């Protein structure tokens, strides 16, 4: 990184010619440029944000059913074909204005798509660099209104990125407390603190209004700071301020009263008059003290105005952005303090992880309106995004210097539109993850170690999944490096991608695997296990059928639980599976904990089964092989026999050895061919197979396939079954549903088992009835 590359808006002109010699690894920054189209750029006082749309070619593993009339395929159930698939991705890159020219040159050299004619531009610096951009890229610069872009970008991130917003608490264990995105993001107040302050009320996607503002903003801090001290750069002024003592410059209530002003509840430490002590000619003031006083003055003033506007318009969600905030812990702290003071805690100051990108995202969306990007759901690609970095002055210099490098955000367009499960009891308070590793340092340490430890195995598995590809080894190594680097980043900055959770660690691994074209490392294993398990299906079903009703219900439950032991995602199990592929279903049953289980509401479930059948059960399934075929399917079959409709929700794309929707289609057809009950269910549409919309081993019930949500609603679903550690323990363990729910899992990790007060292979069988509904089954019997 070039020394002195950080520049302010004033010297930017001079500096961008100066830094031409910098060496960047641009192909790692401006990725997928060859397919790029629809450019947008947001040039601020010191940072440039570039946005473009591109397509990514992925390898995807597709399963294809054989025509079983011809016998040449042996016993194999289906074929796996690796295909190329093209998906859409948004790229956002943030860099210092000093690099503009170098970056434009690079883009010009690599831009293949000749259809692109315009570049949308916004931000205060857009006009300054207009000519340069037009000359270098040969694109016409089309200016978009700054505030409109900002709001559009804000709506986009709030809607598409879970854990986008956070509350900042300086002295807490984790400085960042991420907020669950409220299902309805509107209305909100956006306080944008650039050189001045704009206060905007946003009521819907297209309806917003600047309801006020102030001229005392970031420019005032910077401008006055530069006059009062020898420090001329914004970042350095903030750093200077963070070391000062404002009480030497400000007149406090106690300076006037000698203590507090009790009758008004004004404490002695409250600032009565900013700079009130500096009205004297015969005293020198320290630069840090003055900078600190200035920072307090401006932050308090903005906080006060924001509160007055929030109160007037009756808004409780207030987001702060602009260069004054932009990830600076110092200003986030002072603004938070001010908001707390003026609203007595009624309003929380909220900040955004991708605040710096809002303008660029908005400008891009303006230019892409014909593609209607808002009709899709998008997800952050952890593999290609830099994540939030702490710029705390206390951090080591290596991390601070990041402000001179490139920061990236990538958003993948998801195949399906995602919505929340209609059966969540309180969507606004739903948190998928059971443990927040950002706050729980011990758990964080364990899981980071655990994922690091499992890395060798994952690499090995990835290579083995592509025996025909000679360069797989090399790609797998790159994957290893990338994921290890991510783990390292998360060790230092657990808040980088929102709350750190087991789910986010798993998802990040999947993203990294995809990045290096390992779309489905377990495809072959899944195929083999499905083949084997299918052979035992009839035998298993017959064994159940001979049991008495009462015994059968228990056997079905233990069947699901034993099946769930077959999980390659759990290290304790994968070791056994790896060494003994014949590890049997019966042996798994023997491994299960004896009742009473760690969490055991089987008696309640059993009592419920004696009542009337459920109308419709939604079953979130887990692993392929024994789990789905010998555990889940017999259970489903019983539900069908009781007259309950069943919706089987499985992953849209692969994750570990979880059964995917396309695999499940084939499996179910094969089972239907053997089993008239399943066949009848399919025929009469009393058994439905739907995609969950997820490609994670965990489950976020607030981001599910829209079709699934519709089916759930139409069928009057009154029972939700969630199976497996990823979906029922790491996530959703505490999820409250508005109908009956059943969470079943075997804990295949001894650390987690310990945490929950159990041991390896402890069983969680959690049957819950929402409060107030407990009496209903009984009364309907009568």
């Amino acid at each position, binding site marked *: 990184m070039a020394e002195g590359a950080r520049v302010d808006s004033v010297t930017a002109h001079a500096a961008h010619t100066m830094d031409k010699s910098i060496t960047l690894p641009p192909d790692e920054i401006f990725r997928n440029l060859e397919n790029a189209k629809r450019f947008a750029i947001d040039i601020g006082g010191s940072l440039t944000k570039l946005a473009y749309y591109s397509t990514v070619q992925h390898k995807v593993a597709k399963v294809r059913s054989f025509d079983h009339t011809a016998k040449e395929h042996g016993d194999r159930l289906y074929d796996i074909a690796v295909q190329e698939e093209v998906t859409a991705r948004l790229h956002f890159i943030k860099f210092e204005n000093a690099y503009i020219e170098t970056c434009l040159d690079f883009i010009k050299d690599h831009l293949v798509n000749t259809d692109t004619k315009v570049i949308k531009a916004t931000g205060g610096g857009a006009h300054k660099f207009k000519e340069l951009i037009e000359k270098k890229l040969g694109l016409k610069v089309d200016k978009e209104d700054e*505030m409109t872009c900002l709001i559009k970008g804000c709506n986009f991130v709030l809607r598409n990125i879970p854990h986008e917003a956070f509350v900042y608490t300086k002295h807490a264990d984790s400085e960042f407390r991420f907020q669950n995105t409220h299902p309805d993001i509107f209305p909100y107040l956006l306080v944008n603190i650039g050189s001045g302050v704009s206060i905007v009320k946003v009521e819907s996607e297209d309806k917003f209004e600047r309801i006020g503002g102030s001229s005392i903003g970031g420019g005032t801090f910077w*401008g006055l700071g530069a006059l009062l001290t020898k420090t001329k750069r914004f970042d350095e002024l903030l750093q200077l301020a963070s070391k000062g003592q404002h009480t030497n410059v400000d007149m406090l209530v106690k300076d006037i009263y000698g203590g507090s002003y009790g009758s008004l509840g004004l404490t002695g430490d409250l600032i*009565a008059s*900013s700079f009130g002590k500096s009205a004297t000619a015969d005293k020198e003031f320290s630069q840090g003290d*003055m900078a600190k006083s200035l920072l307090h*003055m401006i932050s308090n003033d903005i906080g006060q105005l924001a509160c007055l506007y929030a109160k007037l318009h009756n808004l409780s969600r207030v987001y702060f952005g602009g260069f004054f905030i932009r990830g600076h812990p110092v200003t986030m702290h002072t603004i938070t303090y001010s908001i707390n003071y003026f609203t007595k805690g009624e309003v929380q100051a909220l900040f955004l992880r991708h605040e710096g990108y809002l303008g660029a995202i908005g400008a891009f969306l303006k230019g892409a309106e014909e593609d209607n990007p808002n009709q899709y759901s998008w997800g952050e690609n952890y593999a290609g995004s830099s994540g939030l970095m702490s710029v705390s002055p206390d951090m080591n210099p290596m991390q601070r210097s990041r402000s001179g490098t490139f920061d990236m955000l990538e958003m993948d367009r998801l195949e399906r539109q995602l919505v929340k499960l209609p059966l969540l009891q309180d969507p606004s308070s739903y948190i998928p993850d059971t443990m927040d590793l950002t706050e729980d340092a011990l758990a964080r340490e364990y899981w980071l170690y655990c994922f690091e430890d499992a890395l060798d195995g994952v690499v090995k598995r990835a290579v083995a999944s592509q025996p025909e590809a000679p360069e797989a080894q090399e790609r797998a190594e790159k994957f290893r490096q990338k994921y290890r680097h991510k783990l390292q980043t998360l060790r230092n900055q657990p808040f980088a991608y929102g709350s750190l959770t087991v789910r986010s660690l798993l998802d990040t691994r999947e993203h990294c695997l995809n990045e290096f074209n390992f779309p489905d490392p377990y495809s072959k294993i899944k195929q083999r296990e499905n083949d084997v398990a299918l052979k035992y299906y009839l035998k298993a079903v017959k064994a159940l059928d001979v049991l008495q009703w009462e015994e059968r219900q228990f056997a079905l439950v233990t069947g699901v639980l034993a099946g769930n032991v077959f999980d390659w995602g759990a290290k304790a199990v994968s070791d056994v599976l790896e060494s003994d592929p014949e590890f049997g279903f019966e042996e798994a049953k023997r491994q299960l904990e004896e009742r009473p289980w760690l969490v055991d509401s089987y008696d309640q479930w059993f009592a419920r089964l004696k009542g009337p059948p459920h109308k419709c059960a939604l079953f979130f399934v887990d692993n392929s092989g024994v789990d789905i075929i010998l555990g889940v399917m017999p259970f489903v079959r019983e539900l069908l026999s009781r007259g309950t409709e069943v919706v089987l929700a499985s992953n849209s794309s692969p994750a570990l050895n979880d059964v995917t929707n396309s695999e499940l289609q084939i499996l179910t057809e094969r089972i239907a061919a053997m089993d008239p009950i399943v066949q009848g269910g399919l025929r009469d549409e009393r058994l439905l197979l739907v995609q969950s919309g997820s490609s994670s081993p965990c489950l976020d019930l607030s981001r599910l396939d829209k079709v699934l949500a519709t089916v759930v609603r139409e069928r009057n679903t009154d029972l939700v079954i969630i199976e497996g550690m990823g979906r029922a323990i790491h996530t959703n363990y505490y999820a409250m549903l508005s109908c009956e729910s059943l969470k079943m899992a075997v804990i295949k990790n001894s650390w987690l088992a310990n945490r929950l007060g159990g041991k390896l292979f402890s069983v969680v069988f959690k049957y819950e009835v929402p409060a107030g509904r407990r009496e209903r089954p009984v009364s309907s019997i009568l």
Partner: protein
Amino acid sequence: MKLISDKKPAFPWFGMDIGGTLVKLVYFEPVDITAEEEQEEVENLKSIRRYLTSNVAYGKTGVRDVHLELRNLTMCGRTGNLHFIRFPTQGMHRFIEMGSEKNFSSLHTTLCATGGGAYKFENDFRSIADLELLKLDELDCLIRGLLFVDHVGFNGHPECYYFQNPSDTQNCVKRPCTLDNPFPMLLVNIGSGVSILAVYSQDNYKRVTGTSLGGGTFLGLCCLLTGCETFEEALEMASKGDSTNVDKLVKDIYGGDYERFGLQGSAVASSFGHMMCKEKRDSISKEDLARATLVTITNNIGSIARMCAVNEKIERVVFVGNFLRINTVSTKLLAYAMDFWSKGQLRALFLEHEGYFGAVGALMELLKASEEL
């Protein structure tokens, strides 16, 4: 005869408001002294009266605002002139020592004091000058004093005024008016800091909010930025400066009006915004800086006051406090800001005795306290 005189407090009659920056002192000089009284008057008291009424400046920093004097005023059955004196709070210790030297405690008067200094200096008064202060709440005093002075008027003229045509610099003129029906009013007291009160009657009010960006901030920043030493000096400089050299205007960013949001090109987008730039920093004058500081502080107070008025649903906004003394730049700017941003809904009102109401209120408490004996 004796009974009546017993009800009245003994002279001298003082009211004192000890603020963060300035001490405000009001002194009632009786002009209806009978020969008998004159004879009985102790020498000490005479000398105080003579000292205060025959001078307009006291020591290096004490000043009597002669133009504010209220003549032939009747208070508590006595006729006299009310004098308005101020000196910096920094001189408070010197003042207390003087009280000790002049043996003020022998006069057996009650010293009514308000403002934070009444609390801060209470022990010093006691230990150094053997004086016991009657401490009074500053907001109570402010409101009582304000209502009294408005009621008695300013030597036959109204105490209150406003600006006609505030949006038109050419035709903006000061006009007297009366506060006949003053409630509810939003009272904005701009001293070192700012307090904003919603006043519904003499005894029913609440402090809505306050801001630390007040007169102390203006002077403090001006001293640091220009090296000036006094409020007068700072204002003098400000009157000659041009804040648009320092502030970044909407037109500096957008080339004109920002129409999407109805912002005029001439509106300030960023106070001191030009100062981010070295060339601009090198090209401005101290006067420009003083002006920009004044405009920034004033506009901010106007903005907060306006929001409070809207939130509290009060249309009458009264600005007081010593920040407004000899400060027509600020009064006109506040009048303009109230009018412009409220589209004529709000009117800014000002009072001639800007910063002295707290001291007057304290004096009234002295008179009231003795009435109740």
